[in-house]
């Protein structure tokens, strides 16, 4: 089916009456997924947004429950579930895969996260095939395809005059049926793109299985500042910390993004810190992306979106690291099963 470009905003206006609709847009100095409105219109020229859509499903700060004593002095605990119908309109393949990774974490292996699940189940995920790639994009080296995102509900691709719109599952078919007055029959020719930046991933995970004690970590971590930029712009980094704010007789528990780059991330009672230096923190981040997640969920936690590559203030580049791992020799002293 086709959606004519001049009917795009009509469709989005319509969707906005029933759901919160997030579109890629520039907001002041950043590009991000922002709430569609009269002043915020989608910009599909952005290859991928500087900030990922992660916070729509997993907000940087999420209130979990209120507690305290009511006026009669009776203690209460009120969970806060604030999910809405949400449409993410125009996610790139990397961001769709990142939501698959978050689904693995928050919905599988015998645990369903009660704050993530309601947001996720009320999400309509509309993917947009890439027409161009950024210098730092390398998703097709991470077994993704910039031209299609099979885990989305609807796949779109952009032509000159119209978008081609295809449902990928039942949810997508139901949505397209509801959008039918905006759609026409037809298809467009989408010229497939591929990333210029390539890394060779063959054997990297298997090698990393034996590189926990390798000297490479000492040298790559030297330039790291231990800021949280890479983890906060990453679409798949999902670590959080739970804190509370107390006011008189009521309080609120919330979770907020945490970063394995921060010293207090692993700090324990009595100030013992198993990752007190930056080397083990840097090692943890990259092993989690390229090795540990694959062990647990069978896929890489790096989706090749290139955001950390573009934003790291000291150009600590995961693609360079992957090349270095590929070239590294496994010495006897360095072999240790992680």
């Amino acid at each position, binding site marked *: 089916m086709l959606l004519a470009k001049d009917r795009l905003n009509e469709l989005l206006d319509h969707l906005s009456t029933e759901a919160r609709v997030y579109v890629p847009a520039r907001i002041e100095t950043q590009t991000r997924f922002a709430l569609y409105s009269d002043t915020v219109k989608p910009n599909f020229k952005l290859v991928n947004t500087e900030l990922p859509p992660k916070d729509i499903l997993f907000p940087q*700060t999420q209130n979990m429950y209120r507690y305290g004593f009511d006026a009669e002095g009776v203690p209460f605990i009120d969970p806060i579930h604030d999910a809405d119908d949400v449409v993410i309109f125009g996610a790139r393949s990397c961001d769709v895969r990142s939501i698959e990774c978050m689904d693995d974490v928050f919905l599988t292996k015998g645990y369903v996260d009660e704050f993530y699940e309601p947001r996720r189940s009320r999400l309509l995920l509309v993917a947009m095939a890439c027409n161009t790639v950024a210098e730092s994009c390398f998703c097709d080296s991470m077994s993704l395809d910039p031209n299609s995102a099979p885990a989305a509900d609807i796949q779109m691709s952009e032509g000159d005059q119209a978008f081609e719109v295809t449902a990928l599952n039942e949810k997508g078919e139901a949505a397209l049926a509801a959008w039918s007055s905006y759609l026409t029959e037809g298809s467009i020719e989408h010229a497939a793109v591929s990333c210029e930046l390539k890394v060779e991933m063959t054997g990297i995970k298997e090698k990393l299985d034996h590189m926990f004690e390798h000297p490479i970590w000492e040298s790559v971590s030297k330039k790291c500042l231990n800021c949280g930029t890479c983890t906060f712009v990453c679409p798949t980094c999902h670590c959080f910390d739970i804190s509370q704010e107390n006011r008189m007789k009521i309080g609120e528990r919330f979770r907020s993004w945490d970063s394995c780059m921060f010293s207090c991330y692993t700090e324990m009672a009595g100030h013992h810190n198993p990752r007190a230096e930056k080397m083990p923190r840097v090692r943890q981040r990259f092993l989690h992306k390229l090795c540990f997640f694959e062990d647990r969920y069978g896929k890489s936690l790096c989706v090749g979106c290139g955001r950390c590559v573009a934003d790291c203030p000291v150009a600590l580049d995961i693609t360079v690291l992957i090349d270095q791992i590929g070239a590294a020799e496994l010495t006897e002293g360095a072999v240790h099963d992680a």
Partner: protein
Amino acid sequence: MSDIQSQLRARAAELLSSGEVVQVIGWMDGRFENQTTPAFIDRPEDAELLVFNEYCVNTTPKYTLYEKEHGKLAVCVRGCDSRGINRMIKDNQILRDQLYLIGLPCSGVKDRKTGELLIKCQNCNHRNPVVYDELLGDAVEEPQVNRYDVVERFEAMERDKRAQYFESTFNRCIRCYACREVCPVCTCRSCFVDQVNVGWQGKQNNLAENKFYNLTRVFHIGDRCVECGECERACPMNLPLMAFNRKMVKDLDDLFAAGEAGLDAEGTHSLGTYDVNDVEEFM
């Protein structure tokens, strides 16, 4: 600059071969065109990796904090780097004799994508290192700039416009703390942010907490800020952090004739000094 680069490589190799230093901290090429990344050279044969060009965006002083345990360090310093080094010596973070400073006159650093001079370099009035053990190449002319330009702009705003400027800035902060980590003045062993049991800083990302973090940092570094602008460059959200830092620098200069931080390694800083003649506007 390429001449300075070849001198730098030669001197780095000599310093490492002679054993005078254990490591040279400078820059090397990154993966992309016109991209550099911090380099830590510890073998004379690797000195060839060092580069010095108009894309050396990173400052070097903060790394001395982590690398000093290995022995004496050679550090490449331009004006901004050298002021950071002075400030770190003054703050007892490192000793002058732990460092061999390779001075490099700088003509400003460019954004690799736009080719424009970085904002931090547009406001720079110390292109030549203020301290060094040897200077490679000839000193360059210091530009005349009004570095308070940005401060005057927001001082001139209407009160509610100014509040809006603060709020829209801090609303966008993601609290990655890149500004803190890159800063040569942010060297507290335990930052107020990380004192979770005391609870100065809540972990919520909201306007109140973001404002609290950023403004506390401005006050905390105010009289020691060497105006390298590295916080603003490192910020992934492109927040105008130097506008606030420079406001503090300007006020301290107006009130206490504080001057510019990091021009030498002696003396103290304005908020660390008491003088009976100090202005006391609130008394």
